[in-house]
């Protein structure tokens, strides 16, 4: 079930196991049969820790989604609410509890499990409603870092970036530090900590403080990680704004991946059984899980989309040939051998069929297949994808970043999605170290007139977060940063990459470049550029007892945990995996983050909510 978590250099099954243990312990506290009432947001992340079978083993008989009204008539001893600590959810719980029939027998006991933290506010709120006393167990389940894959951990905290950089609320950093302490308890103290940015500094401080305050956390585990690199998202605001061009990145850009699942339009997926052919095509979206447990996906997810077709094609030939083998199986032994391989071949076949379909879906959007000749014809989706990409790449390579861009104006005129416009304008601003007053004013006016004046609030948020700003001092230092860190590579090889810039077909993500340069030759070589980027850079060492100090075997790779505070994109993950796999790269990377993001989800998290919340 979780084999993919142990495939990497660090066995993350242990972390998952710790989570499962904690869950079991809580469930056993509530003796007897149970029903769980779920805050729906949590089912995704929990699904990565446990299946229903685990819950069932601990007498969970029913599960419901949290909603106001009377709780369903489940004949159980315990009702347990699994919720995030949010006031609006407390209201729903209050309603549920108040409507509980007090005359029923036997009575049902109520409990709350807060994820990831108990909240004093929420409990106070429940108390004022007069229902706090109805809950027998009120506990927390610290789901700080959730294992997504063998080399990937996420806190799935949607608002972390906004809280850190807009509200100046460091609670998510506190959770990050706690998550890192848990990791150290399981995988040993990390001897070296590097960081860049204010939030990184905070997290390192908290870790050091927590270690000092809880001397019990001194452990005797041989350290698995050699280095921790903490990176603020605001050190590299550019990367998430650009369109990711790896296979996984594009799936996320176009369809959105949530808790390793993606929902796809069903048309391209054949009905399940051919025998049932002729039936109506399914209308429900096709839901697929995407992780390295699927061999083919692990092979293609981090490739530039351009290089995916040839792999799929090769695989198709191989698997067709494998099935052809049946004609050559003559003896009983040969037939037996063939049959024994069938399940594996079957899985490979369906995996291949799925990814061919996804590749087709993406290709329809990313490849220009015909041109509109008419002067005012509307661009096709693919034409627009291409135009958008062209502008992004111009900005990133430093072309015309200081004037109003025609394409952006056209998109506003045609009322393309506001998020798309904001992504582009912010990208231009970041690549120009801020926009000139005239340019900034022009964009703002166009946006407000076309999308509504109330968006002035969102523009304000973007300015506060530094994504959109006025160029001060008339100096643009982006070209210096670009050249020193080699962020733009003209001769990119998408098929057989030799540099991380392949993930954006030319642009090398700044964040990953920093990680790469830290490993070799070290940050001392780029002091000047580091000073141009926001926040301090630092190094800390954590003492290890002499017995635990590592004696490196010759040729053994170092393991670095890179923690992105404020979010990371799939393309950045791909770039780090590429570095891990590089021959004589010398370093393998494990990635942790507050949230897996792309430009769209990121900008969305910063937009002012203009309608009252639906609940």
């Amino acid at each position, binding site marked *: 079930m979780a084999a993919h978590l142990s495939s990497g250099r660090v066995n993350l099954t242990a972390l998952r196991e710790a989570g499962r243990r904690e869950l079991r312990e809580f469930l056993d506290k509530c003796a007897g049969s149970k029903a769980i009432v779920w805050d*729906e947001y949590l089912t*995704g992340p929990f699904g990565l820790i446990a*299946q*229903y079978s685990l819950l069932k083993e601990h007498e969970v008989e029913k*599960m419901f989604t949290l909603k106001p009204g*009377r709780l*369903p*008539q489940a004949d159980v001893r315990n009702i347990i609410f699994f919720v995030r600590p949010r006031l*609006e959810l407390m*209201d729903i719980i*209050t309603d549920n509890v*108040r409507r509980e029939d007090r005359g029923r027998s036997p*009575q049902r006991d109520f409990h709350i499990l807060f994820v990831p*933290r108990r909240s*004093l*506010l929420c409990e106070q709120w429940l108390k*004022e409603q007069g229902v706090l*006393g*109805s*809950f027998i167990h009120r506990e927390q389940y610290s789901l700080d870092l959730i294992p997504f894959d063998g080399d990937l951990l996420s806190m799935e905290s949607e608002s972390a970036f906004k809280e850190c950089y807009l*509200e*100046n609320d460091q609670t998510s*950093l*506190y959770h990050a530090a706690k998550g890192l302490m848990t990791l150290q308890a399981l995988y040993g103290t990390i001897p070296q900590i590097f960081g860049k940015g204010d939030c990184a500094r*905070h997290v390192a401080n908290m870790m050091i403080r927590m270690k000092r305050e809880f001397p019990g956390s001194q452990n005797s585990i041989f350290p698995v990680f050699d280095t921790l690199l903490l990176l603020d998202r605001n050190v590299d605001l550019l990367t998430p704004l650009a369109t990711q061009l790896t296979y996984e990145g594009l799936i996320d850009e176009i369809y959105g991946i949530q808790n390793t699942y993606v*929902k796809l339009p069903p048309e391209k997926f054949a009905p*399940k059984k*051919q025998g049932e052919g002729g039936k109506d095509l399914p209308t*429900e979206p096709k*839901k697929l899980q995407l992780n390295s447990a699927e061999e083919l996906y692990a092979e293609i997810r981090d490739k*530039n989309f*351009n290089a995916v*077709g040839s792999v799929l*094609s090769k695989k198709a*030939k191989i698997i067709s040939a494998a099935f052809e083998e049946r004609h050559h199986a003559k003896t009983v032994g040969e037939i037996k051998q063939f049959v024994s391989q069938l399940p594996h071949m079957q899985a490979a076949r369906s995996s291949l069929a799925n990814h061919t379909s996804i*590749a087709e879906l993406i290709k329809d959007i990313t490849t220009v297949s015909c*041109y509109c000749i008419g*002067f*005012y014809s509307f661009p096709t989706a693919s*034409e627009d994808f291409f135009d958008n*990409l*062209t502008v992004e790449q*111009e900005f990133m*390579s430093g072309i015309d970043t200081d004037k109003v*861009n*025609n*394409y952006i104006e056209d998109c506003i005129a045609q009322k393309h999605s506001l998020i798309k416009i904001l992504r582009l304008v912010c990208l231009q601003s970041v690549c120009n170290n801020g926009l000139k007053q005239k340019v900034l*004013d022009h964009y*703002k*006016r166009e946006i*407000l*007139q*076309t999308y509504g004046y109330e968006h*002035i609030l969102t523009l304000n948020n973007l300015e506060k977060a530094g994504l959109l700003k006025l160029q001060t001092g008339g100096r643009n230092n982006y070209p210096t940063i670009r050249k020193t860190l080699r962020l733009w590579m003209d001769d*990119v090889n*998408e098929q057989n990459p030799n540099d991380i810039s392949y993930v954006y077909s*030319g642009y090398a993500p700044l964040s990953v470049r920093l990680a790469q340069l830290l490993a070799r030759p070290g940050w001392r070589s780029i002091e000047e550029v580091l000073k141009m980027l926001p926040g301090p850079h630092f190094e800390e060492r954590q003492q290890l007892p002499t017995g635990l100090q590592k004696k490196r075997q010759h040729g053994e790779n170092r393991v670095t945990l890179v923690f992105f505070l404020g979010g990371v994109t799939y393309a950045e993950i791909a770039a780090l995996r590429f570095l891990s796999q590089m021959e004589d790269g010398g370093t393998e990377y494990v990635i942790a983050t507050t949230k897996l993001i792309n430009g769209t989800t990121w900008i969305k998290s910063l937009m002012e909510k203009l309608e*009252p*919340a639906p*609940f």
Partner: protein
Amino acid sequence: ADCPSRRASRGGRPSSGRAVPLQMSRARADEEEYWHSSKFRAFTFDDEDDELSQLKESKRAVNSLRDIVDDDDDDLEKVSWSGEPVGSISWSIKETASSSSSLEGRDTSQQKGSSSYAALPKQVSSYSLSSLFKGEVPHMSFSDTGVKNYAPELRRPKAEYKDYSNDWSPRDTVRRMQRGKVCSLERFRSLQDKLVLLDEAVAGHDGNVITAVLIFLKRTLRREVLFRELEVRQVALCHLIHFLKETGEQKLLLDLLRFLDRTEEVALSQYREHLNIQDVEKKREFLKGCIGLPFSAEDISHIQDHYTLLERQIIIEANDRHLAMAGQSEIFRKYPRKASILNMPLVTTLFYSCFYHYTEAEPLLAMNWLGYTKKKAPIGFHRVVEILQRNNAPVQVLQEYVRLVEDVETRLNLATKYKCHDVVIDTYRDLKDRIQLMAYKCKVERGSAEEEKINSLLSNMQIRWKN
């Protein structure tokens, strides 16, 4: 501004399935070489050897193999069509909930349908955490809870979490709270004690604890004292501001921001409130009041425009609703309005007005209203035309606006495309282009007014044709 790559994509390249390079390069003179050099790989599957089409064939072949392998009884993970592994949590919620024997009558519809909480009407602003601490009874926001005023303490708690020990130091108190224990803060009485407690909470970085301490201080300190102390404690201050925003304590928030002299934030924060006002007259009044707020120089004009826009929209809406209901205006009969124009963006309003009010004495009345002169629309007229055309505007409407397109070539293109003959004819006349005009004659209907117009122009001796 037009970069070579974009130009190339539109016109310079063959039209079917050709590759488009992902890798753009900066403008360079040897554009041709750039496009034909093999260094730039295409962002598609190769042309010569279209792997995807091969792949489709392979896929067909592979799919046809299903017949010989029945995948029913293998031991692969079972997955429902929607992709959820059978046994996953979200799958099980659906399964166990639907097998639940009997759902309560009036809640049944909610139980099934959407899984969101949309059924619960909820205004964020109805939360006032401060009211909790002032001992007021907060209003419940559920519309359908008739029996709710008596809080049923269903059972005495078996486990009481409260810690009765009274001698925890501020630091210990904070640590205990960080570990999720409830501690009484009441015994921190002096200002000095309270501030030490706050500083300890801030040093712990746990927002949950910081906020809890802030609520305690907010309840037990005079406002001026609280503000003064927070001014020198920026982290705590940020938490309080965030908390006040979340809980909608607008008045206290504004007082705090004013005390801190953060005037632009005061203005924006106040302006934000218009989003909660449903009644348009009230909203208009509110926006009018916003104009005097201390916005930044750049923002103030936008706020002013917002007010003006809504003011105009109210007039247009009243007028048009009347017209539409009276049923005498042809355009409203033919193209019924899909929605009210209130609260729409400026550009939408402009298109709307162009569309429904083109017949009026002053065709650009709406634009004038909105403060734009005839010569200079806030948006290009070609865009107006484009949108109108997309909304099936009649040719007379289009013509009015095509005529206003400044660029001659664009105007001719649009006029030809949308058969605005008058505009084409007039433009050729102005260009003194006899040959084009003659050529255009075959595009208009025989014996039509347009043909007559062309003929009379061609025979007009006063015009000095250039060809």
